[in-house]
């Protein structure tokens, strides 16, 4: 915990490193064409499946099997596919999207708030057992979520939480990694002097936390929100075991159930499901990709906090 200014610096350097102008000019001259070509080739590998997905979502199920996978068919029908995906089975896909949104937003906001309060508590107060409690939580990062999920399911089945939205939201509220980030962040971002000054002015501890500390913690909070959001949005194992009712599914479990229908029901090209699976997959990744492109400064600074400090 030595790099005291890392959090703020990580943000600035990640995107536009403030370097002397002279150096930047010399850097331009040093640009390497072979290295650039090698990296663009690597980039092609990472974008290839996404390009395929985009192309494939313009095809009918028939064309998915008969035309070349990496190019458009003679009769692109993106809008038809999107309409078919959104209206199939009384619009269950839209329901899955809404479910995913609810689960992800509730989990990430709740997790961030809990992590912020606890991180602030651990960073700015000393009390008996604080170190032991923090280390216990930190050790929990190592407990695999999937190994935890089965006992959680059994426990939730006992208290009849299985097959409710709570079965997805509650386990996502506890984010040990979020606590770790927020504690480090609170250490630097909320100066002791500010807290002291507020106390002298007669502010209560809760008032200090909600009106002053939360504002200073905002960038760290955004990071925790973003990472919990992605984790919940992409979660498959937990909802798979917790939910039986298709109307409660998030998009991941819904798509997987469509995919198994596309494979199982109807022999290959005869089933229309595959085009729906493909178009649904495409639609499901758009929100997150857009969120990441828009908020890149935040997630990069968040990773800086977690990755650099040990």
């Amino acid at each position, binding site marked *: 915990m030595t790099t005291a200014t890392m959090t703020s610096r990580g943000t600035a350097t990640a995107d536009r490193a403030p370097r002397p102008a002279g150096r930047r000019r010399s850097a331009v001259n040093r640009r390497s064409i072979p290295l650039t070509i090698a*990296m663009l080739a690597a980039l092609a590998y990472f974008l290839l499946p996404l390009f*395929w997905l985009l192309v494939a979502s313009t095809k009918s199920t028939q064309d998915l099997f008969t035309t070349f996978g990496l190019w458009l068919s003679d009769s692109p029908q993106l809008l038809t596919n999107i309409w078919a995906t959104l209206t199939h089975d009384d619009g269950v896909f839209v329901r899955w999207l809404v479910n995913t949104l609810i689960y992800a937003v509730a989990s990430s906001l709740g997790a961030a708030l809990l992590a912020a309060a606890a991180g602030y508590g651990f960073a700015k107060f000393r009390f*008996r057992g604080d170190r032991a409690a923090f280390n216990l939580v930190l050790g929990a990062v190592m407990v695999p979520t999937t190994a935890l999920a089965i006992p*959680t399911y059994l426990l939730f089945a006992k208290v009849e939480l299985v097959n409710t939205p709570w079965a997805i939201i509650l386990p996502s509220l*506890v984010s040990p990694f979020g606590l770790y980030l927020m504690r480090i962040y609170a250490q630097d971002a909320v100066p002791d002097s500010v807290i002291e000054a507020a106390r002298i002015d007669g502010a209560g*501890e809760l008032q200090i936390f909600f009106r002053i500390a939360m504002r200073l913690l905002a960038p760290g909070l955004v990071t925790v929100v973003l990472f919990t959001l992605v984790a919940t949005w992409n979660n498959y*194992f937990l909802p798979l075991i917790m939910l039986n009712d298709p109307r409660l599914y998030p998009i991941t479990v819904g798509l997987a159930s469509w995919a198994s229908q596309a494979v199982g029901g109807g022999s290959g090209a005869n089933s229309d499901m595959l085009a729906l699976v493909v178009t649904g*997959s495409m639609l499901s990744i758009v929100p997150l990709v857009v969120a990441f492109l828009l908020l890149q400064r935040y997630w990069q600074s968040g990773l800086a906090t977690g990755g650099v400090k040990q």
Partner: protein
Amino acid sequence: MTATTAAPYEVSQRARSTRRRPVRHRAAGPLFVAPFLVLFVLLFLAPLAYAAYLSLFQHRLIGGTTFVGLDNYVTAVSDPLLIRGVLRVATFLVIQVPVMLLLALLFALALDSGLLRLARVVRLGIFVPYAVPSVVAALMWGYLYGPDYGPFAQLSKAFGLAMPRFLTDGWMLGSLANIVTWEWVGYNMIILYVALRAIPHDLYEAAAMDGAGAWRIAWSVKLPALRPALLLTMVFSVIGSFQLFNEPNLLQRIAPDVIDSAYTANLYAYSLAFTSQQVNYAAAVSFLLGIVIVIVSYALLLTANRRRSS
């Protein structure tokens, strides 16, 4: 963690400066930490304890549930299906994790070198798969791997080459490794990249003054500075590999003969609990899996720390 437990070493301080630290916020630290810790106990420790408890019992059709002590564990450590699954995951881990981290490291060093054109585009493009749910990633690659209709098969047919057989027994582990690598290289790259940006540039200048070239600087200055970040990515990757579930679960639908219900340890635990209803044995298996992960992660951390201190 009750309100009465005042901080031991703050007491003397408080006695000296009662005005700066009024008694009023004595309980504030535990108060901020409490909501997180309560949920942590309920949703983390309680399921673990419950799994430990369940794993000590056995349910038989005749005779009901009986206490069997460590019988389930004895069965588990000599269960050929579980051993096969763990060994398969270990093989996967030993090959996939180094390849993925090496790629992430190379990309991060290339991005940090300043020798690259379009660095920003490359960085975002490699990171984008992280925002794609593993369900969608497995569906996309599953289709790309297709033996008749996948673009790789189509291309090799067009050029009269031997057909790649991605979904056969010999290739499957590699095909899964490719999907996981595709998903996580960018995430790891960003952690390493941000850690690289945080290295003070005076160090490079000092090394250059001593006559070190670009490669020498990368090897002797950048790599040692990346240690904590590399360790972090390594531990997370090891935890992730042991939990391998989503990708094989999805590919199982298109290659049911290759991926059986015990293909990975986690798939095995899942099918024990939800297909064959062996809840007690499933609890023992997932508990055991958790223990293996914690041991391997700790061993990794300890070796790394010992090497650093020696």
